[in-house]
């Protein structure tokens, strides 16, 4: 008699990793009617999570309905992922390495001509867009198409006033820098996020600030942003680096609420559905 143990058929994959195991929460979603297209990796923004950025916003169901197999990950210190103590676990380069491992464990394969379901499509939002840009640029063999939502060519986290934030958290001293104050408010409001982990991420990002020109992705690229997104300074900068990129601006939306927009999802699904 055949017996299987446990509720879930798939056994957990264990790896020996260098440094701290970041304990990232990965969730995969099977479509009901799979299309012959590669998996889609979703990378959420700062102080967000799979649940907030992708599930509750309707992205997962929209992608599944389009027949896409979805791989989503909570960044370190976010959502259901662990919050390692060492700053290295939060560095963009380390996260990119983890993403590659995660995508490969979840079944993504390098692009192979004649196999339309090979490769990996990547959708990032905000900070996730920066990671997606770099991931695409550094992993041309596996990343097939890229969608960047609410991106910018410079990193707002790089200008984050870490000292002011720490002082604010310690004794409530008001934060002068408006951008820093805004990010701290957002982080505090974010359910499940570990405030000190988020500050570690900021610290790590400051050590590896975003330089879009350093590595430019060669994949087909879609850039989407809300018309009122105050962070999309230099969207033109990214467009300038990839003139072939398609740009969609969602009327009336800002950085927070562009993520749910139908027009965003439709544009992305259509763009990622192209061969």
């Amino acid at each position, binding site marked *: 008699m055949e*017996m299987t143990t446990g509720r879930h058929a798939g056994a957990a994959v264990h790896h020996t990793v260098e440094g701290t195991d970041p304990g990232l929460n990965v969730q995969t979603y099977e479509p009901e009617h799979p299309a012959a297209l590669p998996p889609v990796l979703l990378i959420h923004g700062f102080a967000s999570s799979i649940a*907030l950025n992708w599930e*509750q916003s309707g992205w997962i*169901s929209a992608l599944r309905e389009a027949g896409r197999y979805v791989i989503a990950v909570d960044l370190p210190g976010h959502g259901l992922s662990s919050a390692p103590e060492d700053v290295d676990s939060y560095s963009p380069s380390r996260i990119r390495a983890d993403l590659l491992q995660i995508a490969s464990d979840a079944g993504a394969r390098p692009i192979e001509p004649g196999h339309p379901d090979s490769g990996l499509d990547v959708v990032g939002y905000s900070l996730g867009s920066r990671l997606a840009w770099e991931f695409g640029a550094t992993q041309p063999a596996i990343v097939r198409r890229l969608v960047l939502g609410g991106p910018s060519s410079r990193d707002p986290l790089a200008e984050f006033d870490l000292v002011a934030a720490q002082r604010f958290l310690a004794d409530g001293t008001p934060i002068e820098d408006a951008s820093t104050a805004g990010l701290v408010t957002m982080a505090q409001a974010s359910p499940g996020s570990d405030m000190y982990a988020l500050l570690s991420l900021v610290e790590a990002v400051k050590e590896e600030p975003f330089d879009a020109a350093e590595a430019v992705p060669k994949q087909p690229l879609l850039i989407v942003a809300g018309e009122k997104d105050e962070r999309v300074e230099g969207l033109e900068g990214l467009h300038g680096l990839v003139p072939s990129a398609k740009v969609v601006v969602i009327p009336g939306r800002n950085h927070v609420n562009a*993520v749910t927009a139908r027009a965003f999802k439709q544009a992305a699904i259509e763009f990622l559905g192209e061969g």
Partner: protein
Amino acid sequence: MAELPFPLPDLGEGLIEATVLEWLVAEGDQVERNQPLVEVETTKSALELPSPQSGKVLKLYGAPGEVIKVGEPLIVFEVADDTAGIVGTVPSEDAPKRRVRLNANLDED
């Protein structure tokens, strides 16, 4: 047929209201359970609300940009009488799934 109002649900974390961003259904539409109804934005995030049930949309409350408080009417459905008003959910009839196989030697019978 019965009318079934669906108020803005408690979105958790002490949120008391939400702003309508965009309706994804229109009055008169037939919707299925879990179909996205509306995009709303709270002070913390933007999200899509899935339909709590299937039925015909009779009335929508709140134009884009308007604020609705938790518990205030958001949408009114017209539903068949045999699904309205219950506590709990109508179970779905999925095809039977198994992982256990039977294995027996019935020869000795």
